[in-house]
């Protein structure tokens, strides 16, 4: 391509540069649109991963070595220590106070201020969850395939935590189905699963709140009519300020990053 090097004036090159730039942009645009799921989901993954087995994780919390001996003194949370299936409805009064009501970080999901309704029929503003880690899952009651596995994943995360940490960590299951999943129905669902516990919150909100939360959590869903929802399967760990620190996408994924993120978040509150 000797003739290209021969053209040395910038006048001669300029149009070629523009053409090249346009081509590069076009290629980049096509790549972005077609090249990979990363562009759309924010989570790396090949089509094979998409088929449902492998985790795609986004762990932004600083990795800290697990310290199994250094459990916090949670004596002020005695109400939560007994993990019986009978919920202690009074337990909410004992949530730890946010430290000096510092402003929420800009990346906190708890900026979503409008209260949801929990399975006991009580309003719950997300920032009331501030002060300890939380595990968020979006699901719906009539979902028979994926959602039970998502709830199960949250249950397994809880089971893998030391008892005191498990008792203080919040497990927040939020329904897509704002029509059918009434608080009563969510309560029945929780009881049936043996998960009507003090630290489990089964929430339903308005269509707008639900879409807002899903958007914040990067959960895609679509009401397909006929009572079914198409949705992505996501488990999110939030730190004590409501900032996402681990995200598992897919079913049957490894839970360790989420468990580790809960530990890390709990340590940071001490």
């Amino acid at each position, binding site marked *: 391509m000797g003739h290209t090097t021969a053209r040395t004036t910038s006048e001669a090159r300029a149009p070629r540069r523009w053409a090249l730039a*346009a081509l590069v*942009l*076009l290629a*980049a*645009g*096509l*790549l*972005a*649109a*077609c090249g990979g*799921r*990363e*562009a*759309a*989901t*924010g989570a790396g*993954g090949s089509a094979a*991963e*998409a*088929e*449902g087995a492998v985790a795609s994780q986004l762990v932004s919390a600083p990795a800290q070595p697990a310290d199994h001996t250094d459990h916090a003194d949670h004596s002020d949370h005695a109400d939560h220590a007994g993990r019986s299936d009978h919920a202690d409805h009074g337990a909410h009064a004992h949530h730890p106070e946010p430290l000096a009501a510092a402003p*929420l970080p*800009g*990346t*906190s*999901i708890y*900026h979503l201020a409008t209260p949801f309704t929990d399975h006991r029929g009580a309003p719950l503003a997300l920032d009331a969850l501030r002060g300890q880690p939380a595990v968020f899952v979006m699901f719906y009651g009539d*979902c*028979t*395939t*994926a*959602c039970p*596995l998502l709830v199960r994943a949250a249950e397994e995360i809880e089971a893998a935590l030391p008892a005191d940490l498990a008792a203080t960590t919040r497990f927040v299951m939020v329904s897509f189905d704002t029509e059918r999943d009434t608080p009563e129905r969510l309560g029945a669902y929780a009881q049936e699963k043996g998960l009507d516990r003090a630290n489990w919150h089964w929430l339903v909100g308005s*269509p*707008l709140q639900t*879409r*807002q939360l*899903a*958007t*914040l959590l*990067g*959960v*895609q*869903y*679509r*009401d*397909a*009519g*006929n009572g*079914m*929802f*198409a*949705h*992505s*399967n996501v488990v999110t760990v939030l730190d004590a300020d409501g900032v996402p620190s681990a995200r598992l*996408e*897919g*079913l049957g994924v490894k839970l360790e990053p989420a468990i580790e993120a809960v530990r890390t978040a709990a340590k940071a509150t001490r």
Partner: protein
Amino acid sequence: MTHVLRFLIGLTLGLAATQLAAARAQGARPAAPGPAMVEIPGGPVELLFPVEGEEPVEVAPFRIDVLPVTNAEFLAFVEAHPEWARSAVPQVFAGPGYLAGWAGDLDLGALDPAAPATQVSWFAAAAYCEARGARLPTEAEWELVASAGLEGPRGVDEPGYRERVLTLTTNRAPVPGPVGQGEPNHYGVHDLHGLVWEWVFDVGSSMATGDSRSEGDRRLQLVCGGGSAGAVDKSDYAAFLRYAFRSGLEGGYSSGGLGFRCAG
């Protein structure tokens, strides 16, 4: 990385639009005085990429803004709701591009007050409509209105409809002009195609896998390459552009070519 890619999509589309930017549709006329919203009777909408087994969406009657929300209207909203000012809004609700063209928190700067409000995130657009006692239109509602022709509710029945919409979509001015200059459609709604892209309520609904154990955004695969054979109507290229653009959006994103209107 996703933001970079998305920016590049925007640039690519913008570049195409700029190069094609010939004169805007002749016969432009100011919006006739009339109601800010019009009644839409509703009806079945076949989305371009239905969820497997999904029936056409049956849209109930609703109302929609005749015009996109303008800069002046959005400024009034921010004045009344200072938590949505550029310097106050939490990062989760609006990324760095939010109202980036404004000269200050309550200063439109060089922007035309009558031009559509752009550089507005989905969260801010939804909050605007909520403050008005309205909401963003769903994707199905938006598509229902946008599928009307100049004479009737089914644009495809009118000769030249597809070409007209595609021309409007790809010949947008890089900096949108005032709202209401475009020809109203059968419902009396302006500027659905020729001015800016528009937010819809169900952002993040493009995945199309149903309640299954498979994951992810099937629509992107559908838009691209051989997968587009899954689309309901393969001849509507402007619709491909709209669905492809929407499927890449996240709630905190904003751009100078993306506005909104409210429904109720």
